[in-house]
């Protein structure tokens, strides 16, 4: 059963140095507040997993919290590069980072296999690309038709962290709008933390919503505005200006570091 707690306590309880941590949310509902709390608590040597690293992982990589990144698209959506990610890969700054990269279809299927507690998922993909030998995928023959397919290994993160619009007092979570891979990520991980915009007495059914029962979640923490500069549909709007601002600010190591100290690391920036 999910414990309703504070974000600081949830991160202290669930995230340790060296863990593999998946903070998911496909453009929408990115758990920025939780990622920032992980940085404030000084977690190190993380294996960060995320389909689209986005600004959040740019920040975590730039602060040196990650030893390894598992991903499928490392850009600033619609704007261009993630400069801290690039600096880490191109110049080992602030530390070298190991990469494991996939396609979106591959990552999505890996999470789904993890959620199903299967060792791998089967798909058509990767073949003929230079990605295939790097991604650790393998050919597999269909036992029924003989078709050659691709097996991708299951993803089983130590910790899943996602953001949603709301939870009730039993820790049942509801999210709507673009659902990404959050349900699969929560079910694939050993431990799960969900931050929410608000705690409500009762979840009101909404079209297309994803509900994750509280008994598969370890901790739920209220974090209003916790997906900014991403957004929580119906509650906050995506701050497209911030995504453009980040492109300029993050090009410079010192400006980046000063900004992070001022806006993320300070105790009163919670």
């Amino acid at each position, binding site marked *: 059963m999910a414990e309703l707690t504070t974000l600081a306590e949830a991160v202290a309880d669930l995230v340790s140095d060296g863990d593999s941590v998946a903070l998911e949310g496909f453009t*929408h509902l990115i758990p920025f507040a939780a990622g920032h709390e992980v940085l404030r608590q000084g977690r190190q040597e993380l294996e960060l997993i995320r389909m689209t690293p986005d600004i959040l992982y740019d920040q975590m990589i730039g602060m040196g919290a990650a030893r390894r990144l598992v991903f499928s698209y490392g850009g600033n959506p619609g704007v261009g590069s993630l400069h801290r990610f690039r600096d880490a890969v191109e110049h080992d700054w602030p530390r070298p980072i190991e990469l494991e990269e996939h396609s979106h279809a591959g990552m999505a299927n890996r999470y789904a296999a993890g959620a199903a507690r299967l060792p791998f998922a089967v798909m058509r993909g990767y073949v003929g690309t230079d990605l295939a030998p790097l991604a650790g995928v393998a050919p597999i023959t269909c036992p029924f038709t003989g078709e050659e397919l691709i097996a991708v290994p299951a993803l089983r993160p130590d910790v899943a962290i996602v953001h949603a619009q709301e939870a009730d007092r039993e820790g049942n979570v509801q999210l709507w709008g673009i659902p990404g891979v959050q349900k699969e990520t929560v079910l694939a991980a050993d431990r799960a933390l969900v931050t929410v915009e608000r705690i409500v007495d009762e979840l009101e059914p909404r079209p297309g919503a994803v509900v994750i029962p509280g008994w598969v979640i370890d901790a739920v923490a209220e974090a209003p505005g916790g997906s900014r500069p991403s957004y929580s*549909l119906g509650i906050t709007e995506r701050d*497209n200006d911030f995504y453009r601002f980040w492109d300029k600010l993050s090009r410079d190591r010192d400006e980046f570091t000063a900004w992070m100290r001022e806006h993320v690391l300070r105790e009163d920036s919670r």
Partner: protein
Amino acid sequence: MSEVTSGEVQTVVAARRLEHATSVFIGVGRPSTAAILARMVHNPELVLVYESGTIGAKPFHIPLSIGDGELAETADVVVSVPEMFNYWIGPGRVEVAFLGAAQVDRFGNLNSTVIGEYAHPKTRLPGAGGAPEIAACCQEVVIIAPHSPRTFVEHLDFRTTVGYGDGPGDRRRLGFRGRGPTAVVTDLGVLEPDEDSAELTLTALHPGVDVQEVQEATGWELKVTAEPATTPPPTDEELSALRELLDR
């Protein structure tokens, strides 16, 4: 109206390719602008599919990201990423895919991963995203890229996405079910695969562009069709719709 830019011609030509399409898969930037323009001018029923899971989105504004709120709010249905790739992209339900890339080779293979060596890249690019499976599975692919020798290269630094591989027959050998790239729309003209060799061939020039200019912007000895067509210039309707869209 002020003079037409080459970028506007490129967008208008890309939009025209969707006149009879039922559905198109698009990323952000020029592909998205072209697809929204196609809905405005040519094909109001066109189904826009974005990687974020929004199927049948009807954006009034050009979205900055593939996951902007307006896409989810106007979509016929919004699906998870596993569903998008396994139920919609994989089976080839989406007709046309608009793809961009940092590098394109003569067989329409694409690089969006690195410039330089993979282990020590000169420039680390964002990576594959959905492109490899989209290009394998959608019924046809239209590549939209700026025409320059940096983009149109003899050898890719990394093959992220397969067009025609090393030539005819490769797509079948690899088990791909989509037809592959049917056109590359640039700011100078249109390249289409040769029926026999699958090699990209210059088939149309945008107004005011000559073959020499396109050859100089291409990093390999470009095949040119016997008599390249001239792209009909944007009509007043196309141009005013495009400019109005960009001003929104």
